[in-house]
């Protein structure tokens, strides 16, 4: 018992540790602890403490997202000295590898063996949906810090699953109207052929069309890897649209945008895209190919508010590269969790208390004013239009317009 507490204390206070070491060691602690509880089935609540289980991908193509979210969370937990409701706060991180079956196993481990108070994390929608019934049936709390599948705010809603990140609909619907009014009236749409791709495209095209715009063609590319994007780019080249809307993330975002530039299209046909396509995690790899691309998202590095300036600076100092939207989501999630546990005085069995807290969450986040919507159990937040510009030799997403505050409709009426 004491070994474990000591271990975590040192870990979470000492900023010298890199993330990898933290996970490695905290994991070791968890393993020892797990063994202990197995052997002696001892009562763990002698020392007041709060344990949070973290389910994130640390290997595979979403590894960088997992890392960013974790880093963002650590910044907030450091700010509150790893104390909630007077208890010491511990984190047990597990690698979900983007596989629903692995995530199930890890979730069970966290809840049933490590007795965590609640679980957070989740990057991919597939994993989120895979875990939905487990958390719902067992009445355990899950605060989702990324995965944006619309259904979890709509037909698959559960009182125990809340989301502090976004729904796929959210940034794209406002963007559709804006693009019609400010960029062009005829669009070519391109996105990977999976849940999130369709969610985003549907939201964008619905609002774009309702504003009066016309969709020339919809192109869905293989997921998770699109391979060589050249054939897709050629197809766009041949249909000569006025504008291209796309959603890609990670490596696909890099190869798509770079190929778009290489084929000489970036000067002729403007791209308006979901913000993830040119977010800070891929922007360095895209470089000048991304210049001029306009995108819609609930955050931007250059947002000028005190919370953001503070966060961005801390992140850069600690991890030596720019913050990104995933890190912000991690930071906000940590804040919500900590305050929720304060609210119920560390008693994670007080489900009603926690739900009541979540229903009225409202604070100034790095994203601007931020709240949770009781209906969709999803954030109410500003959507910004950003443009990639070069400032002092660095590429940056600069906010060019704040489209105002949006929340998920909670049903499929708007796409």
């Amino acid at each position: 018992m004491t070994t474990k507490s000591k271990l975590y204390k040192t870990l979470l206070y000492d900023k010298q540790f890199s993330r990898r070491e933290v996970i490695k060691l905290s994991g070791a602690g968890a393993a020892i602890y797990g063994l202990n509880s197995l052997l002696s089935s001892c009562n763990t609540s002698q020392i007041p403490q709060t344990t949070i289980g973290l389910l994130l991908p640390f290997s595979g193509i979403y590894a960088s997202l997992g890392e960013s979210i974790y880093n963002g969370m650590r910044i907030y937990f450091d700010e509150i000295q790893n104390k909630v409701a007077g208890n010491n706060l511990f984190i047990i991180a597990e690698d979900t590898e983007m596989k629903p079956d692995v995530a199930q196993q890890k979730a069970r481990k966290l809840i049933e063996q490590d007795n965590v108070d609640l679980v957070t994390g989740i990057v991919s929608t597939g994993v989120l949906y895979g875990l939905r019934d487990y958390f719902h049936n067992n009445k355990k709390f899950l605060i989702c810090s990324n995965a944006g599948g619309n259904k979890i705010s709509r037909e698959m809603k559960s009182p125990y699953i809340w989301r502090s990140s976004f729904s796929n609909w959210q940034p794209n619907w406002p963007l559709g109207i804006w693009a019609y009014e400010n960029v062009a009236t005829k669009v070519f749409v391109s996105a990977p052929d999976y849940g999130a791709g369709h969610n985003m495209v549907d939201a964008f095209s619905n609002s774009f069309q309702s504003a009066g715009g016309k969709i020339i063609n919809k192109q869905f590319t293989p997921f998770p890897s699109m391979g060589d994007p050249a054939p897709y780019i050629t197809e766009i080249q041949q249909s000569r649209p006025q504008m291209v809307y796309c959603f890609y993330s990670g490596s696909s975002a890099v190869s798509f945008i770079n190929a778009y530039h290489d084929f000489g299209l970036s000067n002729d046909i403007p791209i308006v895209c979901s913000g993830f396509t040119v977010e800070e995690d891929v922007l360095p790899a895209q470089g000048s190919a991304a210049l001029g691309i306009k995108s819609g998202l609930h955050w931007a590095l250059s947002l000028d508010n005190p919370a953001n300036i503070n966060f961005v600076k801390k992140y850069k100092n600690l991890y030596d590269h720019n913050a990104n939207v995933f890190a912000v989501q991690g930071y906000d999630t940590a804040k919500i969790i900590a305050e929720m546990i304060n609210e119920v005085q560390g008693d994670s069995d007080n489900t009603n208390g926690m739900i009541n807290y979540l229903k009225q969450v409202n604070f100034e986040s790095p994203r601007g004013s931020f709240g949770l919507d009781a209906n969709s159990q999803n954030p109410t937040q500003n959507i910004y239009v950003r443009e990639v510009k070069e400032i002092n030799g660095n590429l940056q997403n600069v906010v060019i317009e704040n489209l105002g505050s949006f929340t998920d409709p909670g049903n499929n009426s708007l796409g």
Partner: protein
Amino acid sequence: MMASGLSLIFGQLNFINLSHGSFYVLGGYVAYSILSYSKSFLLSIIIAPLIVGLFGVILEYVFLRRLYGHKRHLDQVLFSMGIALITADIVTMNWGTYVINIRTPSILSTAILILDTEFPLYRIVIILVGLCTAISLWTLIYKTHLGTILRAGVFDIKMVSESGINVQPIFTSIFGLGAALAALAGAIGAPLHSLYPGLQFEILILTLAVVIIGGIGTLKGAFMGSLLIGTVDTFGKALFPEISLFLIFALMVIILIMKPSGLFGNTYHYES
């Protein structure tokens, strides 16, 4: 055709070498590191294959030579899976989890007009490099003494070694060459594909498809296989973008139904 096809040109001596994906990925990452030190693209695509080729030689010398023979295909597949898993970790350890991209060298980063559509110069260069490699390999295998020994060696190791030629060093160096080629492909393909964790598993499946469609143990097969897959992939993406992935595997099934040993597969291996 496309850059990934390049890595597959070398259909490997009756050895199901799935670690090709790993070599490809390592090639890209090593080239990236060299590029950031030396700032020279040319240097990076020369040195990276050398380093990875050496790695390949060591791998062959220590482990792989125990796994030759057509009865051990399954072992070869599993071994390569193991290598792919380890490389995945080596990559994240050294280069992190973020997507990395090598910039196309500025001289080559223009688009030129072909038949009224713009086409990136860099891609044309890649196709040329691919063709040159294929031609020089073909010359090596079919026109030189070394190639004759090699082909005989693939067919029947015992016979060749009884005739007094030591084939092992030749196999080792050929394996190294294969690794180096894959690394070269990885290095010059990196500006197109970008590098990220998990890339090797995608390449791995594609490699398998190419080798199988072409037939194991023939250079011609591997070349035609990658050409065919490249074509089907490109046209598939253009014509039926939504089922392009399906198409490759459907093609594989059809070819294997018609010719159960691949297009140019050696029936000798098949029978025994």
